[in-house]
């Protein structure tokens, strides 16, 4: 990893008794695109605002470029923010908005107008300089907000759900543009979002937060394929989660586990007999068979098939009522609704999650017994 440009060490943030960021440790590398991903209220925006200087951490240290920033006001920090609401100055036209940071730093006028022009062309808003924010569309305002921030050549650009207010199509387009912009400028981007797809598409690394805790930080592929916690497995994409006890392991690392309804199999390099773990299998890795499969005791009934274009989603209800989601590539044969089948997977496709907290969370939150009874009747 390149040199860290932002370091967050043991940071805690309280609002009164409300503990919103819990013992956060994070290093953000120079030039990377890091997303902080999590549901609303997970502390991701608070973390961003602490880096920007709008909030002061209750405990811990934040450094930017190796310097501690707790005594620096926002205007003294070499970071800039793109706000969720854009926060464009309504009484200034686009040029004045973009030039604002340079004017405050008393940059000479010819240089300002040159840099404003550059910044506007970088976000494809040439010729919009005379317009006022009220005369722009949401996407255009977004671009102005980005231009207004990057013109100051910040070392770190903080983006707080910047695409949240845009429609789907524009969002996708802006995601690509932002990513390209980041590559071109080489600025570190810290991007807060609750949209996992957005985080997966754009980021070099993703930090997943939940309830003030950093659950996992890593490259998108690791986050998706090797979730470290049950929350990450559940939050990123769709998955089937089983709560199980590790029973035995063979030399190849294949582990036999006992779940509520019987035997299942996975792979685990940190096997420990008797430990309660979560086993997560993605729908596209979940397989169905007419005959029983050795090592898996998961018998279920097909409830429905939903065709969504690229795949067909099959829902299978297990005997204990747990709902299993299976994704079949379009064109492959789809089991008939109501048929009884066995669920299995390749042991290497199952990820075993060691529940660090030791607390067993309800793994079967999607159970709907009444529907199961109806389906089997």
């Amino acid at each position, binding site marked *: 990893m390149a040199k860290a440009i932002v370091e967050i060490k043991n940071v805690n943030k309280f609002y009164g008794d409300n503990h919103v960021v819990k013992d956060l440790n994070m290093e953000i590398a120079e030039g990377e695109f890091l997303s902080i991903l999590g549901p609303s209220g997970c502390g991701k925006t608070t973390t961003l605002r602490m880096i920007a200087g709008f909030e002061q951490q209750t405990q811990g240290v934040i450094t930017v470029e190796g310097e501690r920033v707790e005594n620096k006001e926002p205007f003294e920090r070499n970071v800039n923010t793109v706000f969720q609401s854009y926060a464009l100055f309504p009484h200034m036209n686009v040029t004045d908005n973009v030039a604002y940071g340079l004017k*405050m730093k008393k940059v000479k006028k010819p240089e300002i107008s040159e840099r404003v022009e550059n910044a506007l062309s970088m976000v494809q808003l040439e010729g919009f300089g005379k317009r006022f924010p009220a005369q722009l569309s949401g996407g255009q305002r977004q671009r102005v907000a980005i231009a207004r921030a990057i013109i100051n050549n910040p070392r770190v650009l903080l983006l707080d759900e910047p695409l949240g207010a845009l429609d789907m199509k524009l969002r996708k387009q802006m995601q690509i543009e932002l990513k390209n912009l980041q590559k071109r400028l080489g600025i570190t981007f810290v991007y807060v979002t609750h949209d996992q797809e957005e985080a997966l598409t754009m980021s070099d690394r993703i930090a997943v937060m939940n309830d003030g805790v950093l659950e996992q930080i890593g490259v998108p592929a690791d986050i998706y394929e090797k979730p470290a916690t049950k929350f990450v497995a559940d939050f990123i994409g769709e998955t089937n989660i089983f709560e199980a006890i590790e029973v035995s392991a063979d030399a190849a690392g294949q582990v036999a586990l006992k779940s509520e309804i019987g035997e299942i199999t996975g792979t685990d390099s940190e096997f420990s007999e008797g430990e309660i773990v979560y086993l997560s299998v993605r729908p596209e890795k979940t397989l169905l068979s007419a005959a029983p499969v050795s090592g898996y005791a998961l018998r279920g009934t097909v409830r429905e098939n939903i065709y969504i274009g690229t795949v067909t989603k099959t829902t299978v209800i297990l005997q204990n009522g747990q709902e299993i989601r299976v994704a079949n590539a379009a064109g492959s044969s789809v089991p008939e609704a109501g048929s009884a089948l066995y669920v299995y997977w390749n042991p290497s496709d199952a990820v075993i999650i060691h529940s660090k907290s030791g607390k067993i969370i309800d793994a079967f939150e999607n159970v709907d017994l009444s529907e199961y009874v109806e389906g089997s009747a």
Partner: protein
Amino acid sequence: MKQGSMFRKKTVPLLTMISPVTAWLILLIALPLLYMLVISFCGTDDSHNIVFRFTLKNYAKLFDPTILSIYSNSLIIALLTTVICILVAYPFAYIMASTTPFRKTLMMIFLMLPFWTNSVIRLYSWRTLLGVNGYINILLMKIGLIEAPIEMLFTRGAVVLGMVYTLLPFMVLPLLTVIDKLDGGLIEASGDLGAKPAQTFLHVTLPLTAPGIFAGSIMVFIPCLGYFFVSNLMGGGTSQLIGNVISRQFKEAFNWPYGAALAIMLILITLLIVKIYTKTGGSIDDLGVM
């Protein structure tokens, strides 16, 4: 048209609906004003009766140097009052907008509470403070800052003080409205872009709250021209306002036509100020009078 006729039958005639308000406006506002306008072009006989014969001599008298100096004195006092009101009310409204709801309510109560007492009575209490034998003079002499009492009452300063005291809430309220509406995100954005607090105030806060300053200034400046009782009580005749001259024409000199001409002039000045206000982008709604 058939539909049209049905419409007409089922609704109360327009004139009936608006007539109570119209009657009220005509009777109490339009007619008296019209009467004022008419008599401002009339003269008086020796026993102060109005003589209905067209003349412009009342308006000619408006350009008398004494009257002109009273006009300029009124404008100076109104201007001073407005500026002081802005300087006092802005921080007050700013604190009020950013504090907790409880404190905000408390501040609002303290701001409005004096209105439950007649302003003439409240101004009398200032006289007991400022007078030659008033509490402030007594205190200053006790602590040895002065040897003889200072004449604080019956000065232009005292009139301005009385005006500020009476009109301050009219500045605070429009300011509070605009400061309340100010998006905190903009202040944060300004700081984020490298502006120091003073720069943020100058470039963001002030321009965005300017409509409140304008509206408040109108609400203070205009009454200031006419509040003759403040000048009577606090200035004791040393500081003449247009309002004083007008009231004297009606109550003492019994020259109603001349008083009417002075009043019409004041109305024209007021309209001119409001016109400037709306021309520069101000909204009548912001004044809260309509």
